C-alpha cells in the first residue's frame, strides 16, 4: 500500500469526532495555513500539482489563480459533494468516516481564496452524511475553527451544508450553483465561468470533496513533497471506488501511477476477479468514461503497461484509451453483458438529463429506447449504426458535458464490443423483462 494521506488513521476510534481527529494531527494544517499568506497557500497548491478529483482533472492551483477578485465583491467557495456518477462512492466514504478533513480543507481553502461564506452541496440521498457533516461543523464552530476571527487570525468564515434534491445534473458546477440559489438545477451557458460570475453573480470556485480534502495534507507535507508522489503530471494520491466483479470492492487510496493490472489483481487492492473468472472489461473512471476491454485496460495500444494516471489511462485517445475521471473503477468479468451494461447506463442518462438542450433531452431517450428494444430481442442490425449516429450527434453539441457523458459509454461499447450487439440481434431473445424484474425496475 502506498502513502495514505486521506484515508490514514481510519481505524482510530473517534476519528469522525473533533477530538479523535485532533489526536491524529487534525487541524494542525489549519493552524499552519493561518500563519501563511493566502496567496502562498495558492502557490503551495500550484506546486503540489493537485488536479481536480471531480472528473475533469483540471489543475486546482490554476483554477484558484483564475478566481476574479473585484474589490468589494464577496467570493465563494463551494464544495461539490453531489457525487452521483454511477460507480463513484469515494466522497461519501471520506465524508462519512472523516468529516473533519473536509471541514478543515474548506477552512484552509476559503482562507486561501478570501471567501468568508462557503458551502458544501451534498447529494440529497446522502442525508445521513449531511448529519455527520453538520455535526462536524458544529464541533468546529465550538472549537473556534469556524465563525468570527478564527484562532485569532482575523479571518471569518461561515460554512453551510446544503442538501440537494437528488439530481445527478446538480453535480455539474453551474447547475449546482443554480440549485444552491434556489432555482431549477439547469446548467448555465458558459461563459461567463463561475470564476468570474458564479454564486449570486460573484466569483466562485467549485471543487470536489476529495480535491478540498487533499489541501490538508498538501499544507502539512508541503506542495513539493506532495508532487513527489505519483508520475509526471499525475501527482499525489487518488481515491478509487472499486466495484463490480472483484474480490475486494471498496474505496482505495492509491499513489497515482500504480499499474492497472496491479490494482485489479493485487491483494492490497481489488484482490482479483471473484470466483476465479476472467476479466472482460473495465469502466475506469465512473459511468461516463469509455469502457475498455481487458487487453486495452491492462496495456496501451503500444503494449505498455497501463498505469492509474490521468495520462496513461487516456493514452491512445478514445480509440484505444479512456479517462481516469472520478475514479469510479467498475470491473466486469467474462459473464457480463456489455449490452446490458450500456443499456443500464443509458437508462440513467435518459433519466437524469436536465432537458435544456435538444440533442441531450431527445437523444438520451432515443438511445435508451433503441437499447431497450435491442435487449428485448427486437433489435435490427441498423440499430447499431443508428446508435452510433445518435451519440455522435449529441457529443460536443450540448450546453454542458452531460451530453458527452451520455454519448461516450454508447460509443465505446459499440467501438469495442460491436459483435455483442450483433449477437443480441441475431439471438432475438428478450432479456429486458427479466432484467426489469430482477432489478425491481419500472418499465418506462
Amino acid at each position, binding site marked *: 500500500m502506498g502513502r495514505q494521506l486521506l484515508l490514514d488513521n481510519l481505524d482510530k476510534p473517534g476519528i469522525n469526532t473533533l477530538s479523535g481527529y485532533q489526536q491524529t494531527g487534525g487541524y494542525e494544517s489549519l493552524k499552519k495555513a493561518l500563519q501563511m499568506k493566502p496567496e502562498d497557500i495558492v502557490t503551495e497548491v500550484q506546486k503540489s500539482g493537485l488536479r481536480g478529483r471531480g472528473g475533469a482533472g483540471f489543475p486546482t492551483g490554476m483554477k484558484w489563480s483564475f478566481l476574479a477578485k473585484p474589490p468589494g465583491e464577496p467570493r465563494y467557495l463551494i464544495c461539490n459533494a453531489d457525487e452521483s456518477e454511477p460507480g463513484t462512492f469515494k466522497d461519501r466514504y471520506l465524508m462519512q468516516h472523516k468529516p473533519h478533513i473536509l471541514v478543515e480543507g474548506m477552512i484552509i481553502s476559503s482562507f486561501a481564496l478570501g471567501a468568508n461564506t462557503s458551502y458544501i452541496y451534498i447529494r440529497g440521498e446522502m442525508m445521513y452524511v449531511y448529519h455527520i457533516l453538520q455535526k462536524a461543523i458544529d464541533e468546529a464552530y465550538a472549537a473556534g475553527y469556524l465563525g468570527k476571527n478564527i484562532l485569532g487570525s482575523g479571518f471569518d468564515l461561515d460554512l453551510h451544508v446544503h442538501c440537494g434534491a437528488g*439530481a445527478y*445534473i446538480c453535480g455539474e458546477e453551474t447547475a449546482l450553483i443554480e440549485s444552491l440559489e434556489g432555482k*431549477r438545477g439547469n446548467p448555465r*451557458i458558459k461563459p461567463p465561468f463561475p470564476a468570474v460570475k458564479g454564486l449570486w453573480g460573484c466569483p466562485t470556485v467549485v471543487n470536489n470533496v476529495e480535491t478540498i480534502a487533499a489541501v490538508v495534507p498538501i499544507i502539512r507535507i508541503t506542495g513539493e513533497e506532495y508532487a513527489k508522489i505519483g508520475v509526471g503530471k499525475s501527482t499525489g494520491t487518488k481515491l478509487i471506488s472499486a466495484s463490480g466483479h472483484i474480490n475486494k470492492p471498496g474505496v482505495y487510496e492509491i499513489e497515482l501511477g500504480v499499474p492497472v493490472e496491479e490494482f485489479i489483481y493485487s491483494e492490497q487492492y481489488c484482490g482479483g476477479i471473484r470466483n476465479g473468472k476472467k476479466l472482460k472489461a473495465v469502466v475506469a473512471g465512473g459511468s461516463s468514461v469509455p469502457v475498455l476491454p481487458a487487453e486495452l485496460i491492462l496495456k496501451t495500444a503500444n503494449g505498455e503497461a497501463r498505469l492509474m494516471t490521468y495520462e496513461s489511462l487516456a493514452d491512445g485517445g478514445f480509440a484505444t484509451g479512456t479517462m481516469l475521471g472520478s475514479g469510479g473503477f467498475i470491473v466486469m468479468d467474462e459473464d457480463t453483458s456489455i449490452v446490458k451494461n450500456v443499456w443500464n447506463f443509458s437508462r440513467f442518462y*435518459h*433519466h*437524469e*438529463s*436536465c*432537458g*435544456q*438542450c*435538444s*440533442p*441531450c*433531452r*431527445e*437523444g*438520451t*431517450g*432515443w438511445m435508451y*429506447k433503441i437499447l431497450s428494444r435491442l435487449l428485448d430481442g427486437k433489435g435490427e442490425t441498423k440499430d447499431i449504426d*443508428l446508435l452510433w449516429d445518435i451519440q455522435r*450527434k449529441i457529443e*460536443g*453539441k*450540448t*450546453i454542458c458535458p452531460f451530453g458527452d457523458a451520455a454519448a461516450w459509454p454508447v460509443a465505446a461499447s459499440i467501438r469495442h464490443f460491436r459483435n455483442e450487439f450483433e449477437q443480441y440481434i441475431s439471438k432475438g431473445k428478450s432479456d429486458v423483462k427479466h432484467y426489469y424484474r430482477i432489478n425491481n425496475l419500472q418499465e418506462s
Partner: protein
Amino acid sequence: MARVTIDGHTIDVPEGTTIVEAARKIGGDIVPPTMCYYSTLKTSGGYCRTCLVKVTKGSDKDPRPMPKLVVGCRQTVMDGMEVQNITSPEVLEAREGVVEFLLLNHPLDCPVCDQAGECDLQDLSYAHGDEGTRTEFRRRTFPMKSIGDKIKLHMNRCIMCYRCVKVAEQLCPERVHGVLNRGWDAEISTYIEKAIDSEWSGNMIDVCPVGALTDKTFRFKSRVWFTKPLDAHRNCDVCCGKVAIWVSGDAVLRVTGRKGVYHEIENTEDGKPGWICNTCRFEKKNLSDWVIEGPRHIDRHSVISQNHYEQLKQLKQDLSRQKQIGEKAHNN
C-alpha cells in the same frame, strides 16, 4: 469594433455582438437559423442548438480555431474571427441532427395546427432536415392545458425553447410560468395550472416558435395563409397599440404583434419591442376598433410569405408536403 467574417462575408460590428447578430447584419442565407434565441428577450438562446456554427479562426490575437461547434446566438465575436455556417459540412450535419432531435417527439400534426404556415419548425425542417424519419417509437404525449382563459398549451408540440418562460419572467410581473420536471418529461406549465392574469401574457403566443401556445380566440378559425395581414393601430393606454390584424372579409380573425424578418416582434419608434397587451390582442376583433395603415408584407421564407399574393404553386407543393408529413405521422 470587431471585424468578423461569416461564410466569406466580412462585416464590422461592435464588440460584444453575437455571431447571429453579426450574421443578421449581413443577412441572407448565411444567417444561422434560431429557434430559441429571441433578440429582445434577455438570457434567451443557447438551448435548441440549431444555430451551431464553426469558428475556424478565433481572432487575430488568438487565431486558433475553437475546438467544438459553438452556438452563434451566444458566442460573441472577436476582432478577426472567421466563422463557417452553411459552408461547413460539419455544421450542416450537426444541424440536421438537431432538427431530427426536435422532431423526434413532435407530433407533426401540421394539418391541424394553427401555427402551420408560420411555424419556425416547419421552415427549419424544410431547410435543414432530412426527408424521412428514423423514429420508430411512440411519441411523447402530454395532456392539453390552458394557460389562462385565452391561451392554449399544446405541450406535445413544444420544443422547450424557454422563450415563453422568458416572457413570463420579463414581461409578466408575477411569475407563475415555468418548466416542471426534468429531461424527457420536462414540460411548460403554469404552476399548479394557475392562470396567468397579466396584461402581457399573450405575447407568449407570438414568441412561441411552434404551435405549442396558440390563441384560443383564433383556434381553428382559419389557416393563416387564407387571412390577410394588415398593419393597424389604436390608442391604447397599456401598450403601443401597433399591431398586425389578420382579416378575412370584414372579420378580424386574429391580432398579433408586428413580426419582422426573423419572426421577432419589431421595435416601435422608441426603440423598444412592440409587445402588445391582451386587450388589443384578444378583445378588439372589429375592423372599427382599428386604424388600418396598409397591407403587411410578410418577410419570411415560410408558406405564408410565398402565399396567394405571390406563388400559389409553391404553396401547393408545400401543402402536399405537409400532407405527406401528416400521413407519415399518422402511420407511425
